[in-house]
């Protein structure tokens, strides 16, 4: 018995240490980026090792970021894509989830199979690319909204959630003469606020972070969403496009801190919204996992 307690105590200590390690490891990269973005660029380049605070705090990098056209247009495009995209996502996903959650529809199982089959087999990247192009969506922001209008996984989660609404509510509505549209709009959706919040979160974050379809279908720079602009800056060493009105020497050394500032500016919305929505998405995954 006593050995058990000692062993248990050691375990608790080790486990707690491990958790603290996890916390540091998950948080510190972003903290480093934050500190670096607020630092003096020349001193930062000379610095070696971890940052415990900004070096000679200044906001030069943020000035450069906020004055930059590409960042501005990137933000505008992404905001458009997220807003319109999520609305379409909600509409399409609800329609599908509503249909698939009805109890007395003949073709339900066939259509369900039709849809879930696409989760396991597809044409591949090239046919997808050629199809989207042939519809005329090349160089249009709609190429980032329509092809991803429905996530089958999300729709299944929503369907599961709709199915938990008691049939008696629909029955009484039907007796009162309500048609399907009324039932969906006046009964199902108002009772599904939690799952709708989850969908907004899942789809919203998906749109905000996406870059690949933009890379495939857009070559007009003014259409680039934020992540694509970021990719140019962070991964293709293209901070030259960011330099406006500075001398070449200054331009070279600002670019380090500018990269960090750009990361913060692009990720800040997600980071601020995240804590508030945390319980919703945990709920969402759990609904999907337990009943899906």
């Amino acid at each position: 018995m006593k050995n058990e307690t000692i062993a248990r105590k050691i375990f608790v200590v080790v486990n707690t240490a491990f958790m603290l390690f996890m916390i540091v490891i998950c948080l510190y990269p972003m903290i480093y980026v934050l500190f670096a973005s607020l630092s003096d660029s020349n001193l930062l380049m000379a610095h070696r090792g971890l940052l415990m605070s900004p070096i000679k705090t200044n906001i030069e990098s943020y000035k450069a970021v906020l004055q930059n056209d590409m960042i501005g247009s990137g933000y505008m495009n992404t905001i458009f894509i997220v807003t319109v995209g999520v609305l379409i996502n909600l509409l399409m996903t609800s329609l599908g989830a509503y249909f698939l959650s009805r109890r007395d529809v003949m073709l339900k199982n066939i259509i369900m199979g039709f849809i879930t089959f696409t989760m396991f087999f597809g044409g591949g990247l090239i046919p997808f690319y050629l199809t989207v192009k042939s519809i005329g969506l090349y160089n249009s922001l709609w190429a980032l909204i329509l092809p991803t209008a429905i996530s089958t996984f999300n729709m299944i989660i929503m369907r599961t959630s709709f199915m938990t609404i008691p049939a008696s509510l629909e029955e009484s509505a039907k007796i009162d003469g309500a048609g399907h549209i009324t039932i969906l709009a006046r009964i199902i959706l108002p009772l599904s606020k939690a799952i709708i919040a989850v969908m907004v979160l899942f789809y919203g974050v998906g749109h905000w972070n996406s870059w690949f379809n933009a890379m495939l279908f857009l070559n007009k720079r003014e259409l680039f969403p934020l992540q694509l602009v970021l990719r140019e800056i962070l991964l293709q060493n293209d901070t030259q496009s960011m330099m406006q009105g500075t001398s070449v020497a200054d331009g070279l050394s600002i670019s380090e801190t500018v990269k960090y500032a750009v990361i913060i500016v692009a990720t800040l919305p997600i980071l601020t919204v995240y804590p508030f929505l945390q319980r919703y998405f945990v709920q969402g995954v759990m609904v999907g996992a337990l009943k899906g």
Partner: protein
Amino acid sequence: MSSTASKLLTERKTEQSWGNRLCRDLVKNKVLYLLVIPVIIYYIIFNYIPMYGILIAFQNYDPAFGVRASEWVGLLNFIDFFSSIYFWRILKNTFIISINTLIFGFPAPILLALLINEITSKKFVKTVQTITYLPHFISLVVVCGMIKDFTASTGIINDLIEFFGGQRTAMLMDPKLFVPIYVASDIWQGVGWGSIIYFAALSGIDSELYEACKIDGGGRIRQTFSVTLPGIMPTIIIMFILRMGSILSVGFEKIILLYSPVTYDTADVIASYVYRKGLQEFNWSFGTAVGIFNSVINVIFLLSANWISRKVSETSLW
């Protein structure tokens, strides 16, 4: 109701053909079917039409002629792929990255969920969870940007390596380091988020089972092996099967963001090869053929994993 009357009614129901019943259903649920039409159109356009595009793999596709008028070449594209000097390299890389992600990345969320489950302070649990979920929400571009920065020869990881007496290297340029960097960052980003499902499973275990185990004299370790693990095993198995289904669709977005010609030797996988050859170099038919190869193998893995799971345990996807 008399027995003859009810017999007549059931006979009438089975006498109606399927077609008849369908027509009546379409009329009765007219609005419902109308509501779902946009959904069906979506799947047809963006999922089933591309499937038809698979035909391109058997042709020498030219966008000017379209699918109907392009010349047919049978299995030529597949043969080209299989006999290409890069074939084995690509296959090897895909498997190595997949298997490494599986071995290290699959158990990690499970372990994390089990360990967090042992924490007694609810506040601490909440804190750990909130913070470990965070990396999942950071965009891939930002994560790769951070990787590129931290692993650069002037970056903080090299600072630490030098501090411990090692040599500085531009880590992303080293083919030998690509897989570890890839897997480690995958775990960093996914371990917290992945643990949510296992939490859901853990909370579904009947507490009476734990009681029974304690009464039988079981300590924490005994409980973990006899109650907890069997309790979440169905979830683990399902997650594993789903993982199998995408074994070859190794996260190619990340690979494309991180790789470079210098690291093709270990970084180039089937999906990135499709992207490079098929899209960037406009070899439509060739790229489609390789893509089909990818899909077919995924399906084989998925079906096998499901079949094995059905034989060995009671859990399977279908």
